[in-house]
């Protein structure tokens, strides 16, 4: 049926066969995109600035001689390139992002509004202190909130990520031990730790001594006590640990470590399970990083830079790195230079400036919009959601440690035994269901681990949809539908990638046009 102009008025798909290969390589509105260097054309530029005149070089012959190798594209081409790529991305703004140990929670839009206020967004870190009193006041307020929430007296604000915070904490421990004139070089790290823990200890010149967990997935005080000695610098413990379990003997562990002359570094990546409920200072923690980009809702995972302030106990406080904000005679001031503060023995500084200001604004906006009681509910709801996921999937899947859990639900691959389906296949099939997979094969202490962290920002309805997919997949695997898993993902822009070849023989196309190569 057609109208008077010949336009069909009803769809007629009776003649449609198999989908054709397209001439463009794109499939419908799923657009392919090459690397920006492959799109580059000589002589094309987005902005056309006149050649500067009368600029005398002051680099004494060290100026760059060749081209810097930037790709040549017009402004609309650049915009399309990145928008096309962004459509391939999966983000918390699109759906559930259940990545365990990552706390991928919603990033409230109020935070973004606050961070874009020109008074914060347009500052320069080298502005005179008298012109940035509001920003310094904000850093001071945020530090105050963190002190109250951790029960620890001093906060180093400058570390820019969780691992950077770990480095900060362990450098302070190293400085404290050096100041005592001791040569303690052994650091105890549980087998379930984040990989960054042993890496950080090693980076600070310590030797890592791994402690196995007990049958309940936790570290026992007895297993710590038997490793303690005069050469132990401290312990790095995550609480709740990466199995999503609260370390019940944490206070006893802290006491034993302190008796032996060591320090207690707490990996604060899982603080979302405790915030407002437990103060790490009360557990005997000497240093703990706080991922503002996890617990305090600032964007991460491709959405923005991290921020990892570190809280210190009285024992480590003197060694906290510069800079820090103080209340001076004429408002807020910064302690920046060596010898500025009496009694302090900072181990140095970690960053050129004061930290991730944009993240500070977002984190404080989050705290102030929740209030103390709201933050307490964050932890409660996060734990409730994880237990809901575990309870709904326990019979279809398998759990290495019986619940209740804290903020994340840990499954193993026992339920997949004999199905021909591995944890990796299960994760790929979850992509077909429209979800970012959970964390897989971590923690290392659990075979075929699948670590699901829903966070408090998922509603019951969204959890139910996610659980239905997980459950459906688990039952399909057990029913012998291995093809669904082995071929997955079927619906992603690319099918299964060869991770082994990618690691062994990576193809780094962009490197050919890197600035260094072009300048040579």
């Amino acid at each position, binding site marked *: 049926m057609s109208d008077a102009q010949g336009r069909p008025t009803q769809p007629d798909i009776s003649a449609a066969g198999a989908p054709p290969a397209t001439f463009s390589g794109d499939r419908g509105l799923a657009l392919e995109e090459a690397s920006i260097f492959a799109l580059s054309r000589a002589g094309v530029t987005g902005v056309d600035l006149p050649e500067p005149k009368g600029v005398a070089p002051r680099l004494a012959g060290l100026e760059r001689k060749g081209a810097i190798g930037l790709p040549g594209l017009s402004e609309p081409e650049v915009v399309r390139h990145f928008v096309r790529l962004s459509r391939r991305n999966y983000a918390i703004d699109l759906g559930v992002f259940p990545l365990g140990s990552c706390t991928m929670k919603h990033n409230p839009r109020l935070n973004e509004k606050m961070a874009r206020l020109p008074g914060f967004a347009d500052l320069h870190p080298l502005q005179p202190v008298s012109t940035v009193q509001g920003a310094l006041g904000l850093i001071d307020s945020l530090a105050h909130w963190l002190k109250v929430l951790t029960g620890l007296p001093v906060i180093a604000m400058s570390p820019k990520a969780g691992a950077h915070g770990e480095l900060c904490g362990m450098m302070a421990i190293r400085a404290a031990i050096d100041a005592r004139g001791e040569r303690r070089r052994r650091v105890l790290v549980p087998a379930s730790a984040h*990989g960054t823990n042993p890496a950080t200890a090693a980076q600070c010149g310590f030797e890592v001594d791994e402690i196995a967990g007990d049958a309940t997935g936790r570290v026992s005080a007895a297993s710590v006590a038997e490793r303690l000695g005069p050469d132990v610098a401290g312990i790095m413990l995550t609480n709740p640990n990466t199995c999503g379990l609260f370390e019940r003997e944490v206070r006893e562990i802290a006491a034993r470590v302190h008796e032996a002359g060591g320090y207690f570094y707490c990996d604060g990546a899982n603080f979302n399970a405790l915030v407002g409920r437990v103060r790490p200072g009360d557990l005997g923690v000497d240093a703990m990083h706080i991922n503002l980009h996890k617990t305090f809702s600032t964007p991460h995972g491709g959405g923005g830079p991290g921020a990892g302030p570190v809280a210190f106990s009285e024992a480590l406080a003197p060694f906290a790195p510069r800079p820090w904000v103080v209340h001076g005679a004429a408002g807020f001031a910064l302690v920046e230079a060596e010898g500025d503060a009496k009694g302090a023995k900072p181990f140095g500084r970690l960053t050129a400036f004061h930290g991730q200001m944009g993240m500070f604004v977002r984190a404080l906006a989050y705290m102030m919009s929740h209030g103390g009681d709201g933050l307490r509910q964050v932890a409660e709801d996060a734990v409730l959601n994880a237990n809901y996921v575990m309870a709904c999937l326990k019979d279809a899947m398998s759990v290495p440690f019986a619940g209740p859990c804290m903020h994340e639900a840990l499954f193993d691959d026992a339920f997949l035994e004999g199905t021909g389906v591995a944890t990796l296949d299960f994760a790929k099939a979850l992509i077909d269901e429209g979800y970012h997979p959970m964390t897989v*094969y*971590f923690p*290392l202490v659990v075979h075929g681990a699948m670590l699901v962290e829903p966070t408090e920002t998922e509603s019951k309805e969204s959890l139910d949809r996610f659980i239905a997919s997980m459950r459906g997949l688990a039952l399909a695997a057990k029913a012998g539908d291995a093809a669904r898993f082995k071929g997955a993902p079927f619906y992603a822009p690319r099918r299964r990638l060869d*991770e*082994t070849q990618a*690691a*062994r023989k990576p193809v780094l196309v962009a490197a050919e046009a890197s600035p260094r190569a072009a300048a040579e």
Partner: protein
Amino acid sequence: MIKFTDQHEWVRVEGEEAVVGITPYAAEQLGDVVFVELPEAGRKVDQFKEAAVVESVKAASEIYAPVGGEVVAVNAALAETPGLVNEDALGKGWFLKLRIRDKGELDKLMSAEEYETYVKGL
């Protein structure tokens, strides 16, 4: 003589020297090996202390020396083809060769039969 550790390394004694690698069980658990970091010749390692690092698509793990001694050679072929560890863990996938410091340390290790029983129990 070949002996095994509970961390899934093997050591084959050849006179005063010992060839070290990881067991087929370890290679299978790791999955495809993509990188092996080996020590420099001349480095001295202690028994059960870190001697190398192996990285697979799943994880990075330390490899501990089954016996103490001085590294006299490493398997350079692993730099180009780390997959040898998966293909032939007990042969071409060897990691390093040590000059044994104290043969008494070998007594702390498992025999092939003991290791087989140990793996079955995992």
